């Protein structure tokens, strides 16, 4: 289904005006107050962890909190500054971590889209003998949870290594490139299915008109279908970006050199039993930094994102 604004759940959720549709019937004051109390309680539940982290992040206290504080008493940026200067105990700068995260998120997003789009087009527009078989074949890896492919990918990439005078100089497994390839392996089948679902919704009248004018299938693909699909390609890219930004399992399994670490890995390293010395204001600042790109993209593109999700394999 081509998602229109009105069929978009999140937009509708935020925008519908349901007040007063029952004509003159007003909500009695006691019920208004009762519902307000409940709504405020729910708002408090939602805000509890958010305010907790924000308060910690803007605090200059490096000791752990002795009592509950949910409202910032000070507005200090020292924790952010410290995290940006020295994110970990290792000699790796924040910019390097950011670059690694961006490399994986952008790289995997672009690669999987670029590779998947023509196959999606073939599945959407051509009729050929092995169509059903091949589509099921693409669907099979989707049944495997992300972690499920990690063992063979680890072993296969670990065997790709280059030596210089007997000294190991490159191991695909222990490199960002290797992690990127492993992530693409999981992302490709989804990209093919998602894009095929979207291409199905693009009306065929334009293509048919072009064909009557004598355009061959290649011109139809490059000059009509691809330009029409750009918005959806962008949405699929950002969906992938948000997922890849949080990727943890593969990078945590594959990478061993601190200069290859990503922001998610750093955040993980800042909690738990091996992080007793990390002040919580720094941890909180890092949590906010890791969350921001995803939250911003989500809020900026929520309309397209929800439309993009419903346009894919999910039937309404």
């Amino acid at each position: 289904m081509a998602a229109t604004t009105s069929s978009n759940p999140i937009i509708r959720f935020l925008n519908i005006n349901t007040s007063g549709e029952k004509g003159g019937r007003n909500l009695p004051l006691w019920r208004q107050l009762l519902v307000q109390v409940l709504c405020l309680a729910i708002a408090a539940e939602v805000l509890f962890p958010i305010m907790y982290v924000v308060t910690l992040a803007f605090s200059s206290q490096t000791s752990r909190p002795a009592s509950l504080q949910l409202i910032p008493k000070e507005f200090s940026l020292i924790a952010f500054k410290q995290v940006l200067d020295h994110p970990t105990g290792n000699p790796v700068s924040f910019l390097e971590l950011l670059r690694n995260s961006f490399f994986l998120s952008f790289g995997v997003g672009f690669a999987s889209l670029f590779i998947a789009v023509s196959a999606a087009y073939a599945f959407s527009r051509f009729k050929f003998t092995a169509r059903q078989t091949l589509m099921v074949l693409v669907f099979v890896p989707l049944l495997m949870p992300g972690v499920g492919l990690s063992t063979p990918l680890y072993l296969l990439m670990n065997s790709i290594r280059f030596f210089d005078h007997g000294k190991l100089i490159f191991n695909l497994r222990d490199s960002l490139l290797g992690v990127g390839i492993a992530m693409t392996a999981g992302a490709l089948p989804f990209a093919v299915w998602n894009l095929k679902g979207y291409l199905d919704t693009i009306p065929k009248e334009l293509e048919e008109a072009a064909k009557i004018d004598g355009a061959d299938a290649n011109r139809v693909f490059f000059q009509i279908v691809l330009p029409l699909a750009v918005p959806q390609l962008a949405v699929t890219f950002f969906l992938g970006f948000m997922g890849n930004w949080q990727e943890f399992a593969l990078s945590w399994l594959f990478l061993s050199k601190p200069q290859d670490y990503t922001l998610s890995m750093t955040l993980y390293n800042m909690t738990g039993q091996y992080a007793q010395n990390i002040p919580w204001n720094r941890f909180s600042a890092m949590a906010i930094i890791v969350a921001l790109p995803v939250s911003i993209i989500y809020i900026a593109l929520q309309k397209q994102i929800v439309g993009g999700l419903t346009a894919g394999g999910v039937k309404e």
Partner: protein
Amino acid sequence: MAQLTLPARPTARPASKASQTRLAYVYLIPAFAVMAVITFYPLLFQVLISFTDFQTKDLLKQLASPTLKFIGLKNYIDILTGGLPVQNFEFFRVLTYNFWWAITNVAVHVPAGILIAVLLNTPGLWGKRIYRALYILPVVIPPLVVATVWKNIFDEQYGAMNQFLTTLLHLFGSVGPVHIRWLAEYKPPIPFLLPGVPLPLAYYAMMIANFWLGWPFMTVVATGALQSIPKDLYEAASIDGASGTQQFWNVTVPLLRPAMIPAAIYGFTLSFNLFSFVYFMTGGGPARSTEILVTFAYDLVRNLRLFGAAAAFAVIIFFVSIVIFLITNRLTRATESYLEA
């Protein structure tokens, strides 16, 4: 979530079938060539090594090494009968816990989501838009960050949850600080809840954290569905003398069902494989009591380095996923026919 629907699509002008087919394969080549190397081959390789005892010492050898020992179904048997050299692991306990974890999450998120959606739908409520904007926040924050933050909240010594409870109990006259070992205490607080499977405090802590993460999505879905219920139905019901509660059970709930069942299934599969969240919050502990299938599979590769067993375990997960997919697909179809009826 994704459904297998393969509609046969008639093309505009079936030029020549042979040239069509040839062109189709040309378009398929890039994706299939790449997937053959990085997706399908590893999947097959996985099955192959699941029959071997591949371990760390074999990492240095080439993959085609003749010394790779084939041990038949031993890995599978070891996993299912508890023969793995791993402490506190019992396959059927983890499997039961995994299902219980996913089902109880959905069982809490869906009703809460519906109730809050109905509450927000109250005509004439003040500040509706502000509440909606606030309630959407958990959907927007990456789950990975949410898990780390809640892990800190449940910290035994300095965590916000214990501090909150201390403050709360203070109001009732208690003085001592609360020291609940949320993530470390093994003794199940309600021992008889799930026979044979201990549910430690960490399970409840994760339920609380995942509740925060999960209900807003259900509220979004339920709000959309609520809007599509014709208002005349409520008017007719109230003319017939139905009370608010009766209207909720006899009009709202049945008409929300078609939208909520797919959402619940989506939530179920999501919770079932909630890797990062579980790994970040407890790492499967204490004593593997909150381990789900995917976190254990990960532990087998990353920490235990039993690659053969890990591959066998992934194959088992694959079959569990197929069973879940077949069941949920059937459920979704059932709701579709309900819609059409």
